[in-house]
């Protein structure tokens, strides 16, 4: 697995305020031909979305 390329991509995707956009990271990795890592970012983004949805659900006030 291209661990050094992923590290480089992550640093490149960082915004001036320090935040990292998963969408931009996914695009960067796809363009660099790192499809497997791009799909992993998409999967992580989906997980983040799911957690946010659960957190907004009044049935789960403890999240």
């Amino acid at each position: 697995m291209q661990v050094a390329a992923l590290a480089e991509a992550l640093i490149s995707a960082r915004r001036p305020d320090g935040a990292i956009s998963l969408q931009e990271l996914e695009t960067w990795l796809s363009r660099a031909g790192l499809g497997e890592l791009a799909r992993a970012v998409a999967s992580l983004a989906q997980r983040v979305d799911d957690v946010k949805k659960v957190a907004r659900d009044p049935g789960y006030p403890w999240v």
Partner: protein
Amino acid sequence: MLGSLREQVREVVSTCASPAIRADLLKVLGRPGYALHPDGSCRAGLLALEVDQAVRGEPPRRTALLAAAAVELQMEAAFIFDEVADSAPYEHRSEDLALAIALLTVGGAAAAEAAAAAPDPSAALRHFSMAYGEACAGQFLDAMLQRRREATLDEALQATCLKSGGLGKYVAGFAARIAGADGDGVLLFERLGSHTFTLAQLVDDLRDACARGQGSDLAQGKATLPVVFYGQGINPPAPLDGMLSADIRRTYESSGAPLYVAILAHAYLSRAQEDLSLLARQGYAVAGLVRFLESVDSSAAETLNAARGGLVA
């Protein structure tokens, strides 16, 4: 299955170990995190049992339980070596190492008995010995990189894949051979084991990187992927006297290291899911293995979700 596995481990130790140290072996296996402790996960033995069920499509017989106990005992021996390597010198170190070697021999005896019922006993035993050696190579590389203090990300991944992926490949490959899987099936089970255990190791490394106290991987300068990634930042503050300051914690959290390892963990999760699909297409009954992977993933969920700080999805 966990209860039956623990019972088999106890039986193997009670019948194969020297009477002089049986009680000590059972005592060490009852420590927190080990196989006979109520919270012990017995991941190696359970994976072996799920592989057996996937191949034979029925509940495990004695041979499968023996094979599972054999790989679990080898895994427990590796835990002891890990614990000794990570701890400052203490008075029980040499006793623990002797017990670890005893567990290896007891595990070998159980493996020989299980292999006797395999379609190709010598191939099964050859794998049992050689594949465990791959994991040992990973342990060696891991220790060497920690001492050298300047590991690259590629070296850290190689150590992780050899050490933990190697154990998963060893466990799944042995169980598949004992159960009578065909050549292609054995290779797929080995890949599944390797990817699943690498995923579990990445999640452990993520959790332990910045843990509180002196036991964190960052404080100890371990060559795990999150620690190596953090060390490659611009002048990252280093722990003093093995203690992590609040400043170091903040720098670590904002370094991107947790996100970096979470992405890699998801990549290995996808690989394991793909292996399961291929096994299902070949006609293996993978429902138990799907649940096994889900249990690894759900125990990882909290750690992976914690890595999402500073993200803009």
